[in-house]
């Protein structure tokens, strides 16, 4: 499934989409993220029948993604985003 974590408020859409079918819970994104946005969990909270681990967006960070991800997304001269670069399976995408 595609799990979209984040929010939309007056200032825009800030969602991180995780393709759980492609995720194997390797955790490389967890290491790469300077803000601790991701964590690997053994059970998918949205799919009780899934047997493999996977990543989710940490509960505390979900409603502040614009701010948590801010340092990796400066207004100009934006380098590739570390979590997406680190993922070997094309699991993560950002809506902004």
């Amino acid at each position, binding site marked *: 499934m595609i799990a979209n974590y984040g929010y*939309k408020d*007056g200032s825009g859409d800030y*969602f991180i989409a995780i393709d759980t079918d492609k995720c194997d819970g390797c955790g490389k994104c967890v290491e790469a993220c300077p803000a601790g946005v991701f964590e690997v969990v053994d059970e998918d909270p949205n799919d009780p029948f899934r047997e493999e681990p996977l990543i989710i967006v940490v509960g505390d960070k979900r409603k502040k993604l614009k701010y948590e991800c801010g340092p990796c997304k400066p207004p100009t001269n934006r380098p590739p985003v570390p979590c997406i670069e680190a993922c070997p399976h094309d699991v993560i995408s950002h809506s902004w």
Partner: protein
Amino acid sequence: MAEEKKQEFWRWTESNWRNPDIKWEDAKIVTAGIDVGSVSSQATVMTDGQIYAYSNMRTGSDSPESARNALNYALEGTDMPESRIDYCIGTGYGRVNVPMADRSITEIACHARGGHFIYGPEVRTVLDVGGQDCKAIRCDEKGKVINFLMNDKCAAGTGRGMEVFADLLSVPINDVGERSFEVKEEPEPVSSTCVVYAKTEATGLLRKGWEVNEVLAAYCSAMAERIFTLIERIGIEEKFAITGGMAKNKGVIDRLMKIIGLEAMKTDWDTQIAGAAGAALFGYALVQKGKGRKK
């Protein structure tokens, strides 16, 4: 103060129901789903995957107590002892605080499965707009989640946002839908997404001579558009069904369906029990697979 007034949430009445055609004693597997939301709580008791009893009531200030009350209310008038329940799943905003739950599952998964149960296997898109959040879920023919998003950060598009406006305009929330259509011409939607700024905008409109109904219409229109942009992100596939409290607000829902260009599915079940029903069904499936409570 205003906050206190609106705590009296009377856009739906608390209710419980027992299925007259089921004898719980004949059931092989009995499961329960308890959905503790920010505003309302529901409990559903299923016998072999069929709804035996359910309840729908206000959430109190204490989540564990709300869960207990919801389950008691569902079992009230039945003679089923709680101990007969083989497996219990907690869901909703307060899901980690359901003391009698064997495990918790997110409302996303439960609303997909519950929506599937309530509306039938043709459902592919479920929209749930509750007190403090808005969820859009795409599911397959079995009610399994394929794609979802949830917004619980921002009040715009939620029941709470609607409440604030009803309060500002002194219109009982029950009447918002109808009154928003009692206008000569459909006005432009309010331009601010943010509820705080929309309030200022609405005050300005009233000063310019707009009628209360027109401002209501402008706000319902803005909410419908906002909910649309949220669900657009995951795509809308037929058939489309709506759960949660907002389903009962025609002012927003009718406008939303017009924007989408589809008819929403209809059901005789109370749309607010979708989460709890889905939770009970998950319980049933887990027990059947041998993953139930270790005796």
